[in-house]
Each structure stands twice: as structure tokens, then as C-alpha cells.
């Protein structure tokens, strides 16, 4: 599996993402600069956390119009796995690949701590290696992770099992329905505020995040194997 980690001016979790894939999975991975226009040849796309364009105007608002974004949208439409973490999630929301928007954290604080997440849907290509309703330990680090959507969107997310992760116990940022991560209708675009790449090695305090990357890899292997044999 060949993975692209998109790098914007202000991305700061790109190296963590790179090492989770290279060292955690042992798979091929490249940094792709935001000014590039093609993602041909990549099997999976990762949009890392950080403060792209200094969070000017709104988090993710300017990155959404970067040169690489048409290629990200094309990859998403083609069904390739696209993972947006933290600022990456905010960019996916701004790009309209996922519904809703981010507000400032309810108590206005930037929160940097490891939280308990509940896996609400383990039947996705990102979460197959977790148990349904399993509680995992993943760090968060954000000032604008207060997920908002209207009632109609929330109902749609709930009814179609598109809420993948929720905060377990105390909700740190005030997000609607304790949402920490959601997936698109087709099931190939996941956005989440917590950082699985920062929990990809026991040395980092938790390796609960590694199973997310392994799930993507397993799914890719199964789908390419199926493609060979059919």
C-alpha cells in the first residue's frame, strides 16, 4: 500500500503520520506538498493535523482551496481511503467531503490530553480491528474540535451508523452527540479530532491508534486480492 501524507504550510503532525505508516505498518509512504496537483499512484491519502495557513479565517478554510485538493476530492470519489485527523478533519469538513463544521471548544481552552474514545462503528475499513463499543486511549490536541451539525444531519449520521468514534466519559470540547469522528456515506472518508498517529507505538503511551492504520492496510490487501482473483 502506497500512502500520501499531504503537507500544508502549518501542518505539524505530518511526520507522526509518516512514521506511523512507515515504522508502524512497514509500508511505503511519501510526503506530498500542497501545491502538487496529482495523487495518481497512491492507495491511501492522509491529511495530518496542524495549523494549515495559521488557521486564518477558519480552521481548514484556506487549505481547502490548495492545489492538491481537487486530487484529494478525486481520490475520495474513486473510493480510496482518505483519513483526516484534527486539522485534516477540519479541512475535510470545509471541502464538503464530510458534513458539519467545527466551533471553538466549549470552554475555549486548547486541550492537549489523552482521552477515552468509544468505537461506535467497527464495521468500517478504518476500524475493523477494534471491537464494537471498545474504549481506546488516543490523544487529542485542539482548540476547535467542537463538532457542530444541524438536527437533520445528526439524524442522518446516527441512522446510517456514520458516527465512528465518540468521547467516552467527559466530552472535552462540547461536540454534538459527543462526536469525535465521522465517516462519509460511501465509507471511505474518515475525519476524526483525536490523533491515532500519536498512539501508534507503546513507547508513546498507547498503541491503540495503530490498529486504525492496520485496518486500512488489511482492507487494501483484501480488496486488491479480490481484484486479482475476480
Amino acid at each position, binding site marked *: 500500500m502506497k500512502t500520501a501524507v499531504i503537507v500544508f504550510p502549518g501542518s505539524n503532525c505530518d511526520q507522526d503520520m509518516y512514521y506511523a505508516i512507515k515504522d508502524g505498518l512497514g509500508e511505503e509512504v511519501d510526503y506530498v506538498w500542497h501545491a502538487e496537483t496529482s495523487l495518481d499512484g497512491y492507495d491511501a491519502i492522509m491529511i495530518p493535523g496542524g495549523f494549515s495557513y495559521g488557521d486564518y*479565517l477558519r480552521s481548514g478554510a484556506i487549505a481547502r482551496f490548495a492545489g492538491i485538493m481537487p486530487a484529494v476530492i478525486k481520490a475520495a470519489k474513486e473510493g480510496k481511503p482518505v483519513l483526516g485527523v484534527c486539522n485534516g478533519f477540519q479541512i475535510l469538513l470545509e471541502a464538503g467531503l464530510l*458534513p458539519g*463544521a467545527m*466551533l*471553538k471548544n466549549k470552554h*475555549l481552552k486548547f486541550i492537549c490530553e489523552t482521552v477515552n474514545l468509544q468505537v461506535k462503528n467497527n464495521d468500517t475499513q478504518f476500524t475493523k480491528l477494534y471491537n464494537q463499543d471498545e474504549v481506546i486511549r488516543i490523544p487529542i490536541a485542539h482548540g476547535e474540535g*467542537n463538532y457542530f*451539525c444541524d438536527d437533520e444531519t445528526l439524524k442522518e449520521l446516527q441512522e446510517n451508523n456514520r458516527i465512528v468514534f465518540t468521547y467516552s466519559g467527559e466530552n472535552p470540547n462540547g461536540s454534538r452527540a459527543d462526536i469525535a469522528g465521522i465517516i462519509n456515506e460511501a465509507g471511505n472518508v474518515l475525519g476524526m479530532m483525536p490523533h491515532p498517529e500519536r498512539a501508534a507505538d507503546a513507547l508513546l503511551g498507547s498503541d491503540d491508534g495503530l490498529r486504525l492504520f492496520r485496518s486500512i492496510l488489511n482492507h487494501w490487501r483484501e480488496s486488491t486480492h479480490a481484484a486479482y482473483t475476480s
Partner: protein
Amino acid sequence: MKKVKVFITLKESVLDPQGQAVMQSLHNMDYKAVKDVRIGKYIELQMEDSADVAEQVDTICDQLLANTVIENYRYEVEEEVHS
């Protein structure tokens, strides 16, 4: 040239944590008359004269300046006065 003044506000249905914090502070300062605070953005654009300035500003706001999931916008177009 035209000067376009764009006002962006959070929708009524969206909680404004910044506004709430400012209101709390005003109450602590004894300004009890303040019943709500909503914080928004003000953006000025200098634009070339053209027949469809309003149309262009609508598109600019929808695409980039405002996130219409959570924000409303309105704007005023003024004749730029050169001194």
C-alpha cells in the same frame, strides 16, 4: 473602485462560546444590562467596478469567507472615495 464591507455572524442556532465568555466578563464588571453577546467577523474588500459586484461577493462569501453551515453573512457596497 468599490469598497465592500462584509459582516459574518454565527447563525442563531449555533452557540458562541467566545460571546458567552465575553458576556460573563461584562456581567462580572457589573454591566448587568447586557443580555447576550455574539462575536462575528468584519472583512473589507476593495474591488474593481463591475456590473456584477454583488454576484461576485455572494460567490466569494459562499466559497471562502463564510462557512454557511454555521455562519450568515451580509455586506454593503460603497463607492471608494479617493482622498
